[in-house]
């Protein structure tokens, strides 16, 4: 597959919740092997984009293509089967369930080879292996984020969407999580990331889009955005 192949392509996407317009004419793409970051304030529409791609929201208009297939309106379970997974904002792990159960939920659509997949996950995240019988509610914030990412891996995805992974984590843990994302990207996973920690996110991303109240106001390579006056002023405090 050519490097320049888009795994995800969004054209003129609009989404509304009742009368509230959440996304307005969004176009973006993620190429295979890329980390693409969505930056913007709370309520700018980062989560809406991810949940709509996943199939949790139905678009008002516009088109979403995943691996060349039109997926607007396709339900979540089908999209997960097709190779995408969301690591939701606030981790979304089930705190009353064990680490093991949480991981197996990622493979809910296909439990075949789940033993092998579990072994791989425990190899990459030994701490999850040690705590496999513990309920997720007993894990620390960083460990929960690891669990949420590991759960995504259990689904054998090609593209992982990671929504605000740094929220509520100590800076040193954020570095660990970002390192994990970079390593996953090196292993071949395409990543769509949303972050309020704009500097750190642009440091690991290939490209980025800036969102303001449901619209894309700027896009470019991570380096371009890092050096952009307006971006620096609004998000980097410089």
């Amino acid at each position: 597959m050519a490097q320049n192949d888009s795994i995800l392509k969004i054209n003129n996407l609009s989404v509304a919740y009742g009368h509230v317009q959440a996304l307005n004419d969004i176009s973006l793409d993620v190429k295979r092997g890329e980390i693409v970051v969505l930056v913007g304030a709370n309520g700018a529409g980062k989560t809406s984009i991810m949940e709509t791609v996943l199939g949790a929201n139905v678009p008002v208009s516009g088109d979403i293509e995943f691996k060349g297939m039109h997926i607007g309106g396709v339900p979540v379970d089908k999209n997960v089967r097709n190779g995408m997974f969301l690591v939701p904002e606030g981790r979304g792990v089930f705190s009353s369930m064990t680490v093991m159960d949480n991981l197996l939920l990622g493979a809910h659509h296909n439990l075949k080879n789940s033993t092998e997949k579990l072994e791989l996950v425990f190899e990459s995240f030994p701490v999850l292996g040690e705590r496999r019988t513990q309920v997720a509610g007993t894990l620390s914030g960083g460990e929960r984020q690891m669990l949420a990412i590991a759960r995504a891996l259990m689904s054998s995805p090609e593209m992982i969407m990671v929504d605000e992974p740094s929220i509520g984590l100590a800076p040193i843990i954020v570095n660990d999580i970002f390192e994990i994302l970079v390593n996953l990207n090196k292993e071949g996973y395409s990543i769509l990331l949303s972050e309020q920690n704009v500097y750190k996110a642009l440091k690991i991303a290939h490209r980025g889009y800036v969102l303001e109240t449901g619209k894309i106001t700027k896009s470019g390579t991570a380096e371009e955005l890092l050096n952009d006056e307006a971006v620096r002023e609004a998000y980097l405090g410089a």
Partner: protein
Amino acid sequence: MEILIAQIFNGLSIGSIYVLLVTGFNLLLLVAMIIHFSFPVVVVFSMYISWVVMTLTGSVTLGVVGGIASAIIVNMITAPMFQHIMKDRGSVDINATMVISMGMGMVITDILSHTFNQGFPIAFPDALTGNDQGALISVGLVSISRGQVLTLVIGVLFVAFLFWLLYKTRAGRAFRAIAEDPNGAKLVGIPLLKTGFQSYALTGILGGVTAVLMAVLLGSASAGLGDQLGHKVLAVSIIAGLGNLTGGLIIGLLLGILEAIIQGYLAGSWSNAIAFIVMLVVILAKPKGVFGSKL
């Protein structure tokens, strides 16, 4: 002392019926997100169907099969009605499901009191209840019937099966995920409607088995039985903590024992009132349930 032992055993067998009913109610609440307090009415309806089949065919086996099948069918037929309301989960109030459940209960109770056996209570044949064979165990005042042993054993086995299903299988894992966080479950790719439907099928089987056990244990049924049980099941579920399966198990058994002891030592006809007064005191002391709500 002998009376106490006998009544505790009586209480355990009727308690295991409560446990089955509460577990069905809680599963529907947790997984399908409906408050179906008429679930016991559906179960009593299945008792009636079972009785009709036994009367028409003279076969106990066919009656048992018919009773279980009718519970599953009623559950599956009514599921789309509930699911229509719940399609847009999160934005729809769970209260609407209560109205549907209430309406269903009234319709079924009316049908039972107008069309079956001219409204008289129905009696199940001895071939099912085993009442003609006398007590299975009889020591002094303690006398234990076949029906009681059967109800207790099958009740325990079925609840054990449900817990196995919930904690050891793929479907059970999905049930628990939805119970904890429906939106989170949706985001990991668990189809909410389909999984909800599975919980209707499961509670249908549960209801059918319960109907047969009730026929064996009680030997009779009347149109008003479902409502009466409905109140108790709702009370047990709330006292244990809504959606708390283990809590429902304990409180269900305790209610059975409490009622049996009241019947053994005080006037039997007051057992409902006294049991509800005790439950009233408990709920005043623990408004969120003894074991905590899982909702």
